[in-house]
């Protein structure tokens, strides 16, 4: 296990690695069905989350729907 420093939702954050995007969501207790993930500005399909490895320095955005007009 190594700590990876990534930029997650705009903040520098250490995550336990090696890890995939699916693993990252699990670490954060987030359900893949409830969110959309953008990895280095590329949207990642839910089916690909388990294949995409997270590397140090990556920029990850995790978004969902909130109230809006």
């Amino acid at each position: 296990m190594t700590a990876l420093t990534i930029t997650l939702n705009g903040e520098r954050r250490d995550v336990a690695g090696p890890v995939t995007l699916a693993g990252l969501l699990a670490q954060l207790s987030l359900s893949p069905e409830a969110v959309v993930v953008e990895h280095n500005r590329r949207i990642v399909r839910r089916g690909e989350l388990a294949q995409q490895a997270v590397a140090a320095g990556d920029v990850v955005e995790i978004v969902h729907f909130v109230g809006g007009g």
Partner: protein
Amino acid sequence: MTSIAEHPAQASGLDDAPFVVAGHTFRSRLMVGTGKYRTNDEMVAAIEASGAEVVTVAVRRVDLDRTKDAGILHHLDPKRFFLLSNTAGCYTADEAMRYARLAREAGFNDFVKLEVIGDRETLLPDADGLLVAARELAKEGFKVLAYTNDDLVTALRLEDAGCAAVMPLASPIGSGLGLLNPYSIRTIKRRLSVPVIVDAGVGTASDACLTMEQGVDGILMNTALAEARDAVLMAHAMRGAVESGRAAYLAGRMPRREVAIPSSPEHGMLKR
């Protein structure tokens, strides 16, 4: 004389064409937002009272420190409501397209309420950015509902860009100033082939009714409900107002006259 029961519009509800956007038929001409409510319970109750099927949502970062506080889908059943995601808060075409693509990936539908804002004080739309984003997103298969000014030429260009619907404002977002330019809205409706849905600015039921009386296909509101003292009661009022406005439009109003015409017969008066 036709009795009420024999009149088809009365007997079977409003005799109206279905409300269709990009091949999708919606049961209500009233669309509502989900922002700014005091509580989620009040939001859900207000949406229920409004009778709306289409509800708008925004795309935002998950709050990683409070994941319990979660998104809107914990409160709204996406099987019961049609989620229309917006690009609110976006100031460039690129930014708006990024949000639209993220929203589509959520997997509910390929509709987007496209907003490209041009001014922070008024939140008025950036017509140039809007056209660039609308053209590209339409090419990518999005059903674009474009939030725009009450300007006919921009509306025509948006239609030409491939928008599924055009959404001119009644007045600025969250202003509650009501329908500022009925003529512009009427003209946009008359000239466009795609549905025209007025978005933003209505404050109370009479605003919504007056807007629907212009003949537009639908109306979208948020703050008028969320900021009413009683959001649920206002939602109920808005539902009635939208139905009344639509019915009045279909009924065809009487002409305006500068002189009075008596409603009671002039014949048969007692001798003076």
